[in-house]
């Protein structure tokens, strides 16, 4: 145990601190139920479609990946078909827009909360956290009520006589985007706040005293200080948003399908599990790429890690 003591800043190896064996049941469980599903998806994506559609036939094939790019006519002719690539691209675009809008809204509020008196901050952070702890389904449903043709927004606009016909907002890409931003906003505010909270705002004041303008202070002093939070927020918003199911399903009205809806359909009505698995593998590939990009940016942009920020929502 002497070696662990040497490599770590905290004292270890004392009686009563337990041993790594305590973590073994948890690790075995997670291997089975986190790693297991990921591995089986990769395996399924190389198998054949089952006759009745539920499950797979254990015959190796690359057909699911061919279906990603080509459509096959009845005579077996393959033509390039960008439908699914388009949906993947759209999903990534939706996620990116969501992350950027969340970022723009989060920086002011995170910095604002961080500059409140300490006794206020905990309560304000709690207020940001509450929506995160309420059902995503209900939060998405709320926008059906708000955006529909006789919902409060249209009612208010008609009452002020700004419009005579209701504006169709529900079942549009706009509705999907609003739902996504609403779902993920706390995931951006909290990590940025975690960075801002550790920043000594007297430094900003020092910059003012030295003659910097408001914009310069924000751009050169405050924003670099919250960069780890921004990177953590981008990870926590962009990647999970990529697999969003509820917002496009309930608010997009089928017109704005994202990749999760297509995957769900393959495991439901379309009954093509291998193809659904292949689409999921594509989602995993984009996830990996995004993580690599963020890791590179993180290494360049921040001295420390982003772990503290990543955990900030708890």
């Amino acid at each position, binding site marked *: 145990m002497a070696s662990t003591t040497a490599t770590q800043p905290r004292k270890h190896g004392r009686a009563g601190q337990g041993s790594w064996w305590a973590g073994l049941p948890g690790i075995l469980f997670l291997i089975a139920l*986190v790693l297991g599903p990921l591995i089986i998806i990769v395996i399924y994506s190389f198998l054949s479609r089952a006759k009745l559609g539920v499950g797979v036939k254990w015959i190796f094939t690359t057909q699911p990946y061919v279906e990603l790019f080509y459509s096959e006519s009845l005579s077996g002719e393959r033509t390039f078909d960008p439908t699914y690539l388009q949906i993947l691209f759209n999903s990534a675009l939706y996620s990116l827009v969501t992350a950027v809008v969340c970022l723009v809204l989060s920086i002011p509020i995170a910095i*604002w909360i961080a500059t409140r008196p300490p006794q206020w901050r905990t309560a304000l952070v709690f207020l940001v956290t509450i929506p995160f702890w309420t059902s995503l389904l*209900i939060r998405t449903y709320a926008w059906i009520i708000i955006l529909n043709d006789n919902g*409060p927004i249209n009612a208010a606009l008609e009452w002020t006589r700004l419009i005579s016909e209701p504006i169709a907002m529900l079942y549009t890409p706009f509705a999907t985007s609003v739902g996504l931003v609403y779902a993920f906003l706390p995931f951006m505010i909290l990590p940025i706040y975690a960075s801002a909270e550790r920043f000594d705002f007297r430094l900003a*004041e020092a910059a003012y005293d030295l003659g910097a303008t408001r914009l310069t202070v924000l751009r050169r002093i405050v924003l670099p200080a919250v960069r780890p939070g921004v990177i953590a927020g981008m990870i926590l918003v962009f990647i999970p948003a990529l697999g969003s199911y509820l917002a496009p399903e309930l608010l997009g009205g089928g017109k704005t399908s994202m990749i999760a809806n297509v995957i769900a359909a393959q495991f439901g009505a379309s009954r093509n599990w291998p193809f659904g698995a292949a689409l999921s593998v594509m989602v995993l590939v984009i996830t990996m790429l995004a993580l690599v990009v963020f890791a590179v940016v993180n290494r360049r942009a921040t001295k420390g890690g982003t772990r503290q920020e990543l955990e900030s929502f708890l």
Partner: protein
Amino acid sequence: MSRARGTGESLKNFPFFGVISIIVFAFLYVPLVFVVGYSFNANRVVTVWKGFTFDWYAEVLTNNDIQRALMNSLRVAVVATMMSVLLATGLAVGLIRMVRAGRTFAWSLIMAPLIIPEIVFAIGTLALFVQIRVPLGVEAITLAHVAFCIPFALLPIRARLRSIDLSIYEAAADLGANEWPIFRRITLPLLMPGIVAGALLAFIISLDDFLVSYFLAGPGGTTLPVYIFSMIRNAITPGVNAVSTLLLLISLLIVTGSYLITRRRRY
């Protein structure tokens, strides 16, 4: 005092931030207010107000399907919470004593469900269970929930474990206590607030989950969110708002409880 005044000065430097913050808070809460408000609407059409009524609550609370779905949800959440807290406590203790590579591996496994899109886990778990013939239903949902409840249970426990003064162990050991008695009599009681907070968070995460439950429900495993989803799909009445309000209320009570327990922690 001077520090508080100092931070007060700097806020004046970004005055537009305050206005944006208030708008963002409104954005976060107004939709929930509408869900709750319209649950008292006497009209069948949710967004056309006719008058105040509690009828939807009476209707929802006496609905057999909703009662069954709620029972399923509670069974899943209670068992998933107990399992995830047990495993997470072990992980929290074990993580500290792992070699670096092991810790990184364990940590990736723990955090993966928070980052990887949920749809991938949902269909992956479905495929896994169908492959190894785990029947779909309440038990299947419970097992899957434990996987993503663990990180939520773990973090408060770990934060608590880290705050324990190490000299306490030394004192106990010097006085002749062994490994297990020290854990049971000293570590565990000190961890309790973290364990309770972690359990509450795991409970809400399980109770509110839709996507994983939706794929693993099978014929008899409909949970409350899965049932609400089918209500939204069929016909939107204030009844949907009434069930939703009840679910919101449960979440709110539990998260407030967790907040009060961990309040001393600095954010």
